[in-house]
């Protein structure tokens, strides 16, 4: 058994927390809690990135930490909070399939993700390579959340959580993407969120609800 340094253990712990939060989001019915869970996931992501930056002396990763903290822990959850207050939609989230079945599906996805990541993580020379499987799993869980939820806001949170997983994959496999790309991605996420905010109001104006069941008129 080779010796694992403390910081690597910490990262593994945070990766586990990330996955746990992804499952918690999958199981969560209340929108408000869902937003808080999303913020917590962002925080776990930022902490693990900070540890990687500190331990491997990658100063550019601190920028990425800052971006994640500002954008995903503060700004986006705050926007979402305001949005649900304004729209007055603190209803329970209805899934298309019930929670236990979703969780079982989630476990299958995790196994699949670990198998898919195995050949790649063996090639990686980063110390964090073991967490690549977890990153892929959280991407897939977020994807599952997107397709099993019927309302607009949970779908968007699923989309944002998927972005979290992708960022985690980038840090664990390669110590982060080049700065210009990371900035671009952050900008896109922010703009997407603003557009969607406007969009929610339009959808509700038209349909008097954010239930996406109304959006099933267009076929073929």
């Amino acid at each position: 058994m080779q010796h694992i340094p403390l910081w690597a253990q910490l990262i593994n712990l945070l990766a586990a927390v990330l996955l746990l939060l992804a499952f918690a989001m999958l199981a969560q019915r209340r929108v408000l809690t869902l937003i808080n869970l999303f913020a917590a996931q962002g925080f776990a992501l930022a902490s693990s990135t900070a540890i990687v930056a500190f331990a491997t002396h990658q100063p550019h990763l601190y920028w990425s930490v800052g971006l994640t903290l500002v954008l995903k822990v503060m700004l986006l959850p705050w926007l979402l909070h305001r949005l649900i207050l304004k729209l007055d939609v603190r209803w329970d989230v209805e899934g298309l399939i019930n929670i236990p079945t979703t969780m079982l599906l989630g476990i299958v996805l995790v196994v699949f993700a670990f198998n898919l990541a195995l050949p790649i993580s063996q090639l990686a020379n980063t110390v964090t390579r073991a967490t690549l499987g977890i990153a892929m799993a959280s991407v897939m869980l977020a994807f599952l959340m997107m397709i099993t939820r019927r309302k607009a806001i949970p779908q968007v949170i699923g989309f944002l959580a998927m972005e979290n997983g992708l960022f985690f994959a980038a840090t664990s496999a390669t110590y982060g993407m080049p700065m210009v790309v990371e900035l671009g991605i952050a900008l896109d996420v922010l703009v997407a969120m603003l557009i969607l905010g406007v969009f929610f109001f339009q959808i509700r104006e038209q349909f008097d609800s954010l239930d996406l069941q109304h959006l099933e008129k267009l076929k073929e």
Partner: protein
Amino acid sequence: MIEILAVLGVPVAGAALLALVGGRERAAEINVGVCLITFAGAVALTVRVIGEGPLLIASKLFFVDSFNVFLIALTAFVGLTTSIFSRPYMRIEQELGHLTPGRLRLYHSMFQLFNFTMLLALSTNNMGLLWVAMEAATLTTVLLISLYRTPASLEAAWKYFILCGVGIAQALFGTILLYFAAEKLLGAGGNALLWTELNSVKGELEPTVLSLAFVFLLVGYGTKVGLVPLHNWLPDAHAEGPTPVSAVLSGLLLNVALYAVVRCKVLVEGSVQTSFARTLMMGFGLLSVVVASLLLLRQKDIKRLFAYSSIEHMGIITFAFGMGGPIASFAGLLHMTVHSLTKSAIFFAVGHATQKAGTQLMDGIRGLVTISPLIGWGLAVGALAILGMPPFGVFASEFLILTTAIHEQPWATPLLLGALGISFAAIFSRVQPMVFGETTVKRLPHRPAMIPVFVHLGIVLMLGLWIPPFLADWYRQAARLIG
């Protein structure tokens, strides 16, 4: 340097300007003017590339070679003609009460931003920036598709956002994997995502990682190309958005997404040394052609009809690049060009036809030729061109693709021919009564802009008879690069 600055900077400046004054009386003219300057910049860039060969500028951030230079020129050109078409079209829409000045401002500003994101995606050398530009293109078009704020258009825009958002996230994962493979050879930092650098070391990139990356990239960007089974957003987005947007979606955005796929394919081919990438592309391409042609038969809405036709043509091009080889890739590039020109011309004609008839349902559009011969003939000639009638350019490229397929992939030829036959029957039988016969349409309050239609069709006709030597050279060089 100055040319690329013009090509990218002018649309951004135009978007900012139109965000302020886009709802005013003369906004449509400003829009045309901005597109004209952008096009002039693209022409200057093209001339420079003809003279000096491939350009690598701004610390390798932008790269213009024979593969993307004609796409940049094409994008700027179709952007210009679309802005000319949209001037009377949007004015009529506003008078019909579909749009307020505020929406018109949003439309003009987003139109320019959309142009910018496509030109950025085409000219950047950085695979990460390419991704960022594609995502930004998705976001701008979401706003354009939902412009009318009708329930159907909101649904289409939401569907588009979710499907393309998920798709583009897959592409990001593919890009991360690509960076992961490259970083070992090129070192961390910005250089490892530059396409030119990647291309020079593609033989040493780890094949397992690249194969996996390609699957994600193909699925991701393929969603935007509209490949079956990822095509669900495409007909809705085309049918519910304003017609100028349908024209640029079909004519330009699909091309840009396909361009991204082909750039990735070049890298993967160099690394993997098997026919893995080719087989995947041929499979997706063929499936798209066959499924789209069958779905064409069931369409009632004219814009959906031509949207499915776009899926079919994108399938043909993907199949051609999948087959590879100098002739098939040449034909694929030619088909990209002629499809883009023909399809946007058709959408221009369709736009005015639907305004005249007051409906997008094909049963409600009859006898266009009696009231306005130009629109009627534009639609008829455009439809014949897109169906691959000689002497138009689409015939030339489809002929080349089919003859190569007979030699290299004989099993696919009957499927392709069958699909082309079905789509011929489907589109021709629908267009014929719309153009001729008893008329139901009324006159328009403004004179429609029909010059873009005939300019496009004229170029397509020319490309069917004679390809300018520099263009043929580019196609050949690019085809060699694509392999």
